């Protein structure tokens, strides 16, 4: 994620710990034409520990993103709201902070924001709600919800507050971010199956500038060839990842990394001069997550297999 350097303080880890934040899971519902129905969320398989990746689970199987709306409600408790204000906080004492939920649907090219309750220094409220509704025909595959604080109403600056943000609309920091998949069938790598007279697998790289183009199934994908005699060794119907499949994924990842750092050297990646969700961000993430040595191609191949081999989960 590209880091924004702001000339004013925003919510950091330290302040986040002090304010006594309690978040309640998002509640989702939709209208099926006759009644309002709830949709449960469940953690994505293999991601239960991080509590930030979920999928919608509509037991009635009626909800369709093309036909139905999706409403959400989020309750947030902040015990020590006063710490957000004044000299050591993020907004002037006299200002009003708003809570909002940003939604981002990269797969459907759209994003927006819903404003919720407000926090002011004096009122002592601790429970806040944000609600929003997305119309039918918007969502595809997955979307991200970020609960943020923003400056809602500017305040009269008191002594020692001149460094604080005081412009309405300014993002004052993120409370938490979750990714919601529309179904439970997400996959880490964009893997597709084709059938032709080519080799067992190949990768396709379709991009010009990896700093701005998205990492998705169109810019980068692995194609497995179902027509190849060794295709069965990939155990396509089994959830277990075979060693051959792991090797394919790691080789593909290596191609991705090498190709991107040819265009944008690693030093430049560190400067984070790229868009969120871009190929550069994906490559930097993998380099850091697996502590990859990119100095030589053979070192990259070695560290990738040493560090990432056992961490490849289910590929589906």
């Amino acid at each position, binding site marked *: 994620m590209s880091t924004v350097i702001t000339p004013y303080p925003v919510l950091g880890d330290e302040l986040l710990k002090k304010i006594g934040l309690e978040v309640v899971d998002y509640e989702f519902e939709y209208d099926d034409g006759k009644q309002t129905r709830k949709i449960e969320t469940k953690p994505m398989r293999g991601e239960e520990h991080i509590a930030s990746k979920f999928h919608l689970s509509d037991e009635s199987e009626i909800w369709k993103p093309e036909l139905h709306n999706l409403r959400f409600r989020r309750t947030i408790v902040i015990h020590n709201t006063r710490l957000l204000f004044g000299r050591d906080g993020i907004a002037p004492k006299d200002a009003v902070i708003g809570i909002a939920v*940003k939604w981002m649907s990269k797969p459907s090219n759209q*994003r927006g924001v819903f*404003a919720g309750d407000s926090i002011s220094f004096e009122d002592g409220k601790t429970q806040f709600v944000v609600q929003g509704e997305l119309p039918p025909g918007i969502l595809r595959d997955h979307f991200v919800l970020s609960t943020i604080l923003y400056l809602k109403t500017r305040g009269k600056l008191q002594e020692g507050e001149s460094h604080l943000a005081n412009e309405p609309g300014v993002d004052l920091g993120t409370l938490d971010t979750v990714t919601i998949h529309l179904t439970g069938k997400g996959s880490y790598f964009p893997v597709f199956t084709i059938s032709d007279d080519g080799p067992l697998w190949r990768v396709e790289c379709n991009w010009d500038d990896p700093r701005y183009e998205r990492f998705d199934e169109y810019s980068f994908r692995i194609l497995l060839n179902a027509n190849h005699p060794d295709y069965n060794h990939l155990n396509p119907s089994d959830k277990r990842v075979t060693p051959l499949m792991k090797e394919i994924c790691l080789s593909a990842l290596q191609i991705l990394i090498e190709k991107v750092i040819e265009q944008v050297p690693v030093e430049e990646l560190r400067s984070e001069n790229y868009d*969120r969700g871009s190929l550069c961000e994906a490559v930097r993430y993998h380099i850091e997550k697996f502590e990859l040595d990119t100095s030589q191609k053979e070192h990259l191949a070695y560290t990738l297999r040493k560090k990432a081999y056992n961490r490849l989960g289910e590929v589906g």
Partner: protein
Amino acid sequence: MIPLRLPSNQELYDKIESWKTIEDTLKELDNNSLAERQLLLELHQESKEQLGIEFVKGHEYRYDLAFGLKMYERLKISPRTASDNRYWIHKGVYVVPDIVFWRWGPRAHDRYYKISSRIWLKVIWWYIHLSWQDSTEETFRILEMNSTDTIVQLVERSGTQGYRLKLCRVLMRHYHQYCMKSGKSEAEFFRRLMKLNTARLAAIEPALCEGEEEGYVRKLFADLEDRHRNTPAGN
């Protein structure tokens, strides 16, 4: 309807390179696709007649706008469908390859399937969607003075996390008003505007500003006009 399959680049490349006659195309299409082809051909023909042109050279933007508006109105698809590359790849490569060829010439593989942000039919649909002003006439009016560079700046260069729809629409309306003052397209100004906008969006949510998107855009224009006045050479 969106085909579930995403063909490999090689298959798409071969398909375009080996395309010879309309008959080849027609043989492979089902009834739905044939009806879609008929519709798109009509819109293509209407656009050419409206502009009085036989070839696109020198009329690229006017054609994109005319055809884009007609397609946007007639296809009636959701943004969800319009963001699925499979939908557009199918149209460009299998249904109306002749129209894409007419617009872009041979070997423009980027415009059929290869680069997600450049697939031509998709790009012009989004250009109209992001600029839409409640009616075809009004949308045409505010876009008439622009150029293909405006399309690139708006559609291809926007953030990777998705478009803020209302912001884009307000911005395009204000840009038109700005051009009306000088009586011409202000491509350099628009480039700067989009750049400043991207920089600001990193820290500001337009919908949460005073006056919401309208207030945000007014301030964006005012600040940039100030800068423009102070640095007329574009430095």
